[in-house]
């Protein structure tokens, strides 16, 4: 049987009542809290018994102190006089234990306790929460901007959805923590002023565990479909780099503590090294990925390649739901490259297909289409508006032309609605086809698209 165990504990920094209750419950179950490391709290097996714990806040303490300061030592000796033994600390939070039956509490003045805690919270916890909240708000603002400008790109990527989920969780956790803390502080001050009573804290453990499990579930949901692909290797390497960065920064802090560097030196060097290492590690990682992408490491192997105008061109022979051969008789497959790309998330799937003639064979008809399958009806209008805006954007064509979208007869296309792009009143063969749960962005690079061809395109693309 193990005599020592480690547990991941999630507590709000100000939730001294919750921490004490938990540690006393663990002691009654036969596990005594003896310390913590960066991730876990450590417990030692003992005979189950009643042990009292106390959490107090010492604003003068710092995570960067090489050893407890003189003032902290004096504080500890004060506590030891009443039987309170120091066990561990988390920055300004100090945890004590007492084996006496009814020990005198460490804090007996409610107002002093509340103000003391606030000084400790202001030192780094509140600052950190506000900063994270600010970054979370910024990320959500960027998400909203992207949702309005490029919902197709945003919602068709699981990576984007995972990133948004994480930042949403960060924003929620910070907001809940700050609101809970200030609510408790306001009520605690009133209670202290009215009858000098010490108000118990209530943390947000349940919410934090739920959000953590949610993030893990989203991460697994994001990672599972990628297994075996290059993207999963990229994700794995990225996680490894972040882990290495965190370990190195903590190691630097630990070494400086062992070397008895002052808190000021330790804090400065640790934060500076965090910046520098972030740039170096993440920068190197991105450089490697870019080089790999430029060397085609992430690309599929083409069926063949050919040279034209000093460039090497790839040829693919992917299966496509709609090809020119479906609509025309005299198409030579050897003169074409057939390429497909898919991207799918929980909310949307995007399929891109293109059949392009080789550059060495000018004048051939080409075909390109993007099928957006919308799994969440609420996003349909947003995606349609994006395509309409794209086709109304003069930047996509030579300057000076007047562009418009006109609605066509949809029956020919087996669709609900069809729009065609016009330039100065002249129809172009660029279409937006709206079906039940799909929007198709179709470009036909040949002249005089016939009604029969339209019907075939609508039929073939609707079944995907």
């Amino acid at each position, binding site marked *: 049987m193990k005599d020592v165990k480690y547990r991941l504990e999630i507590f709000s920094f100000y939730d001294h009542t919750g921490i004490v209750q938990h540690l006393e419950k663990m002691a009654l179950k036969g596990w005594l809290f003896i310390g913590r490391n960066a991730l876990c709290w450590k417990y030692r097996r003992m005979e189950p018994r009643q042990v009292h714990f106390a959490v107090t806040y010492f604003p003068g303490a710092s995570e960067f102190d090489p050893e407890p300061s003189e003032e902290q030592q004096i504080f500890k*000796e004060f506590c030891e006089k009443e039987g309170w033994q120091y066990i561990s600390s988390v920055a300004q939070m100090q945890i004590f234990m007492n084996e006496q039956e009814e020990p005198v509490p460490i804090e007996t003045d409610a107002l002093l*306790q509340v103000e*003391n805690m606030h000084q400790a919270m202001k030192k780094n916890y509140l600052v950190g929460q506000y900063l994270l909240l600010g970054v979370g708000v910024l990320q959500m603002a960027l998400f909203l901007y992207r949702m309005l400008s490029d919902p197709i790109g945003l919602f068709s990527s699981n990576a984007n959805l995972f990133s948004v989920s994480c930042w949403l969780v960060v924003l929620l956790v910070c907001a809940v923590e700050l609101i809970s803390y200030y609510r408790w502080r306001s009520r605690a001050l009133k209670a202290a002023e009215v009858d000098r009573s010490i108000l118990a804290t209530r943390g947000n453990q349940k919410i934090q565990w739920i959000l953590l499990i949610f993030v893990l579930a989203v991460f697994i949901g994001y990672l599972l479909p990628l297994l075996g692909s290059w993207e999963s290797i990229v994700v794995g390497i990225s996680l490894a780099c972040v882990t290495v960065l965190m370990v190195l920064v903590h190691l630097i802090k630990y070494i400086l503590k062992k070397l008895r560097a002052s808190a000021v030196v330790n*804090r*400065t060097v640790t934060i500076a090294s965090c910046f520098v290492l972030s740039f170096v590690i993440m920068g190197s990682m991105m450089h490697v990925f870019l080089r790999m992408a430029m060397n085609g490491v992430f690309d599929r192997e083409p069926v063949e390649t050919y040279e034209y105008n000093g460039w090497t061109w790839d040829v693919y022979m992917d299966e496509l739901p709609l090809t020119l051969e479906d609509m025309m008789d005299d198409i030579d497959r050897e003169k074409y490259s057939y390429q497909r790309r898919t991207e799918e998330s929980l909310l949307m799937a995007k399929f891109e297909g293109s059949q392009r003639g080789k550059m060495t064979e000018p004048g051939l008809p080409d075909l390109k289409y993007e099928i957006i399958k919308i799994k969440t009806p609420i996003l349909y209008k947003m995606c349609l508006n994006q395509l309409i805006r794209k086709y109304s954007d003069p930047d996509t064509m030579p300057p000076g032309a007047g562009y418009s979208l006109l609605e066509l007869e949809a029956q020919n296309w087996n669709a609900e609605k069809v729009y065609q792009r016009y330039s100065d009143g002249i129809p172009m063969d660029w279409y937006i086809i709206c079906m039940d749960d799909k929007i198709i962005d179709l470009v036909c690079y040949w002249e005089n698209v016939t009604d029969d061809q339209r019907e075939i395109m609508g039929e073939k693309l609707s079944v995907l």
Partner: protein
Amino acid sequence: MFDIIIKLQISIFDNERVRKVPRIKFQTLTEQMFYILLCLMDECCGMDIMEKVKQMTEERVSVGPGTLYNLLENFLEAGMIRETKVEGRKRSYIITESGQDALKTEYQRLLRLASDYQTVTGKGGQDR
């Protein structure tokens, strides 16, 4: 170069400028404040005050070690007590004139309360 880095004192995540001890108003003294100052009418080691208060009040009033530590710091900062001796980590204190004034003011306030109580209960209390 290293000196410059040290002197920059990036304080975002560990704000040294935060007051180490919260400022408490001393217009009205709590029981704990009153008895601490009373103990320091004679020079006394900080740590011994807890026991002294218990004895003085027959264990009616207890001062927690954390509260005692913080109140001593507050009183020192407010000039109501002064340090007399430092022997290693043991520090002794004694009340100052300012502290004695605060104590006397509180005592007189309590006397007024007691007098008002006697006035009310002495005249009307027996009739009720």
